[in-house]
Structures are given as structure tokens and as C-alpha cells.
């Protein structure tokens, strides 16, 4: 029996809250001497790794990391592409559950990020705020009464908080509703981007919605507004899926099972194709068409099949053709391991 309504967690993949902070006594990254960069990275990382914050932190020094390992962190949304590609003393303090990442010497001295599953902006902020208080108790932040937390780029002034929700919007994409959505959200002070943030294209119909205004509204007000916007996108996606299911169920089932078939039996598969087929499978799971695969499995798989994560699992840099073979094998193992071999 197919559901008439879809769970929010099938559409809202993850939430993220990021706080930008700078230490008052140093110029911003890119304007520091190498010794100052080292001081910032060393002092903040050793403080965080030495405190008892209800979670254990460890420091990953990006200067000592090979390209595909740092690229793998980018694909898992633990660090930004900017932190991975820049030079100098930099790294990320990572919690044992990998939900908290504190990037050091990215665009700002400190970029504290908390990730969560589904739509959970409040919880993410609560955890970010606690860690922010801990850092604030030991270091002096760059701050002004009118402009709030002072950041390298004026777009982050004020709260320094960028919150985002990653949504799976295949019906919007299929029915051409993404462009109107981008325009409408822009007017309301929100941005909608592809899976890897600024400048990235949508892959597997995954989109990130984030707040743009950081100076003026409080953290609570921004989170509340973003939560409402995300919910309205989720409701619209639910409505479109229900309509699709009602008017064209056989077409939808066909799309889903074809995706299932290719993913189960392909011997090599390109990343873009895999993401598109996983997107169809997600719809199948949310509609109750596919019952033996969970959304959580698909979330995990979405980053595991990215180029750098494949190289990391092979412990060497793989050529594109090698990745396509490994990707197909990994999908088979993760999703169809216990099923009858073709």
C-alpha cells in the first residue's frame, strides 16, 4: 500500500548550523604571517582537544593530509572545499561522532559546524552554541556592538551564523519548480544551492537552503524562519509526489524499479548517473515502493560513492575508470548484499 503522505525525514536529509568566529588579536586568515597562522591553529586545536565537552575531539591537520583524504572530508560535508584547497596551517577539530567540525584558518579563524540528520536546526544550534561558549571562555572574539561578530567577509557579520537544510526535491526538479523556488527564496533572504554549497550544481536532486542575512535577526529568529521555509518546501514536495503517485503511479514505479535494476546489476557506473538513480530510489523508499532499503542507507551511500571517498577506501588515488568499477561494486555490497546474485 502506498502512503498518501511522506515523512519529513525522507525529504529533509540533514541540517547544519555554522558559526564564523575570529580571534581579536590576529589579522584574518590570508593576512596573517605563517607563524600567526600556526599560533591560531595550534592554540584553538589544543584547547578543544584538551577539554571535556561531553564529546571527544581530535585534530586533523590538513597540511599533513593527502589530497583525496581531505577531498573525502569535503564530500562528507565535514570541511569546506576552500579549507581543503588552500595552503598554510589549517585543519579541522572533529568530534568522535563526526557531527561537530571546527575548521581552523578557513576564511575565518574558526568555523564551527554542527550537522544533524533530518530537520533539526534547533538541536544543531544548541550544540554549536555550547561549544562556542567554551571557546569564548578561553579566547577573545573579534566583535563590535553594532556589527556583532566580525568576519573576514561582511556577508557573515552579525551572528556569523549560516544555517542550512539539505532537501531532496526530485518532484520540484522534474516539474521545473526549482527556478521559481530559487527566485522566491532569494526575495525572502534565503539561498538555494547544490549539494556542495556555493557554486556547486545539484546532484541527485539534492538542494541546500540557507539563510543569507546574518546582521539584524537573532539566531533564534533566523533558525525559525529557515525552519518554516524548509517545511513549506517539504510540504510542496509532498504534495507534488502525492499528485504524481495518484495520477501516474505506474510511471513512477517504472522509474523506481529501473533505477533499482541498474544499481543492483551494473558492473561500472559514473557518479552522476549513480546519484540520479539513488535519487529515484529515495522516492521509491519514501513512497513505499521499495521496502528493503532505508533512507539512511541511501544517505550514507551518497557520500561513499563520491570520487575522493572511493580513493580513500582503496587507500590510493583512483583513475575515473577504476572509480566507476569500485562504485558499482560498493553500491551492490551496501544495498543488495543479502540478495540473490544476478
Amino acid at each position, binding site marked *: 500500500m502506498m502512503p498518501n503522505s511522506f515523512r519529513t525525514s525522507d525529504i529533509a536529509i540533514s541540517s547544519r548550523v555554522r558559526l564564523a568566529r*575570529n580571534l*581579536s588579536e*590576529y*589579522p*584574518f586568515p*590570508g*593576512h*596573517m*604571517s*605563517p*607563524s*600567526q597562522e600556526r599560533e591560531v591553529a595550534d592554540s584553538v586545536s589544543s584547547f578543544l582537544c584538551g577539554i571535556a565537552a561531553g564529546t571527544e575531539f581530535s585534530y586533523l591537520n590538513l597540511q599533513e593530509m593527502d589530497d583525496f583524504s581531505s577531498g573525502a572530508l569535503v564530500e562528507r560535508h565535514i570541511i569546506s572545499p576552500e579549507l581543503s584547497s588552500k595552503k*598554510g596551517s589549517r585543519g579541522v577539530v572533529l568530534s568522535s561522532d563526526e557531527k561537530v567540525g571546527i575548521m581552523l584558518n578557513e576564511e575565518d579563524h574558526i568555523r564551527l559546524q554542527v550537522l544533524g540528520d533530518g530537520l533539526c536546526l534547533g538541536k544543531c544550534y544548541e550544540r554549536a*552554541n555550547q561549544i*562556542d561558549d567554551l571557546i*569564548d*571562555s578561553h579566547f*577573545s*572574539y*573579534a*566583535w*563590535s*556592538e*553594532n*556589527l*556583532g*561578530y*566580525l568576519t*573576514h*567577509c*561582511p*556577508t557573515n*557579520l*552579525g*551572528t556569523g*551564523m549560516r544555517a542550512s537544510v539539505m532537501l531532496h526535491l526530485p518532484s520540484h526538479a522534474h516539474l521545473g519548480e526549482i527556478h521559481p523556488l530559487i527566485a522566491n527564496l532569494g526575495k525572502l533572504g534565503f539561498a538555494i544551492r547544490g549539494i556542495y554549497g556555493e557554486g556547486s550544481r545539484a546532484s541527485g536532486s539534492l538542494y541546500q537552503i540557507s539563510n543569507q*542575512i*546574518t*546582521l*539584524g*535577526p*537573532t*539566531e533564534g529568529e533566523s533558525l525559525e524562519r529557515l525552519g518554516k521555509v524548509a517545511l513549506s518546501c517539504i510540504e510542496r514536495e509532498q504534495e507534488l509526489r502525492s499528485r504524481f503517485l495518484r495520477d501516474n503511479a505506474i510511471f513512477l514505479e517504472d522509474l523506481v524499479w529501473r533505477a533499482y535494476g541498474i544499481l543492483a546489476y551494473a558492473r561500472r557506473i559514473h557518479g552522476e548517473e549513480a546519484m540520479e538513480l539513488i535519487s529515484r530510489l529515495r522516492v521509491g523508499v519514501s513512497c513505499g515502493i521499495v521496502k528493503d532499503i532505508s533512507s539512511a542507507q541511501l544517505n550514507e551511500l551518497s557520500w561513499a560513492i563520491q570520487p575522493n571517498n572511493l580513493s580513500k577506501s582503496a587507500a590510493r588515488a583512483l583513475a575515473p575508470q577504476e572509480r566507476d568499477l569500485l562504485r558499482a561494486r560498493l553500491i551492490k555490497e551496501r544495498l543488495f548484499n543479502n540478495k540473490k546474485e544476478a
Partner: protein
Amino acid sequence: MLCQNCGNHEADFHYSSNVNGEAREIHLCSDCASKMDSFPAKDESGDYLGSMISELLGTQKRTPQPGSCPFCGTDAQSIRNSGKVGCAHCYDNFSAILTPYIRQIHGNGTHRGKLPNNAGESAKLAKQLDVLEHELRAAVAAEEYEKAAGIRDRLKSLKGGTE
């Protein structure tokens, strides 16, 4: 080449540095060079090398160019080009350039969010008043008049404390 500071005398002091790919040059006459407090001083051997090295390593204050931020050396042109500042002090030093830009991004708002530990007392009080005013509006909207009266009293006493 004329001195960048006074523009009257021939520059006989030339200083250049490149920190993190950021190249900076200064050309001054000896009079102006000797007047600049934070300029790398001549050491006993009469050369500037030791001072330059310590400056490059960040152990001494950066040399400001005329019109540049004395803390980080960023100038107005680089802010215009990149849309980004070099340090917290740039927000004060280049407020004429940055204020219209900030308004364009965020509108006319001022910060109403979280405060750090080092925020001044006046900012902490303003924050308390903002929170209470917000609660007051919510209480009135919900027709919780008793609660609203209590909030109004607290607001009055806080504001009284500032007079």
C-alpha cells in the same frame, strides 16, 4: 620616485614584503621614514634586514602604507576588489567604504544576536531590553496581560537603571 608620504622628496627608502602571497611596497624619503613609529628600525649594523625578517615572521607590527589599515596593512582598493577585509580593525578604518556595502547585503539592521564574553555592559543591557521587548510583544499578542505587565515592570526598572 617621490616619497609616498610627503610627495615632496625623492624616496630613498624602499621596503617590500610578501606575506602569504600579499605583496606590499613602500617608498619613502629618509625624513618620513624616520618619523614612522612602527617602521622597522635600523639595527646597530645599520641595515634593515633583521627588522624586515622579524616583521615578515609577524613578530613585529606590520608596516602601514599611507591610507592602509595600521593593523594588517590592507588598503581600500583591495577591499573594493575582494569585498573582504583584512582584520577586525578594517571595519573601523574603512567604515566609509564598508557601511554602504554592509547595508546592501543586510539592510539597515544592527546586531541583535548572541554576545561574546568581552561585550561591554551597554551591549549586554541592550540585549536584555531587546529580549524583554520581544517577550512583551508576544505576551500582548497572546492576550496574556498579567505576564505583559510583569515584563513591562522589568523593562521599566532596567531602563531606569540606565538614566
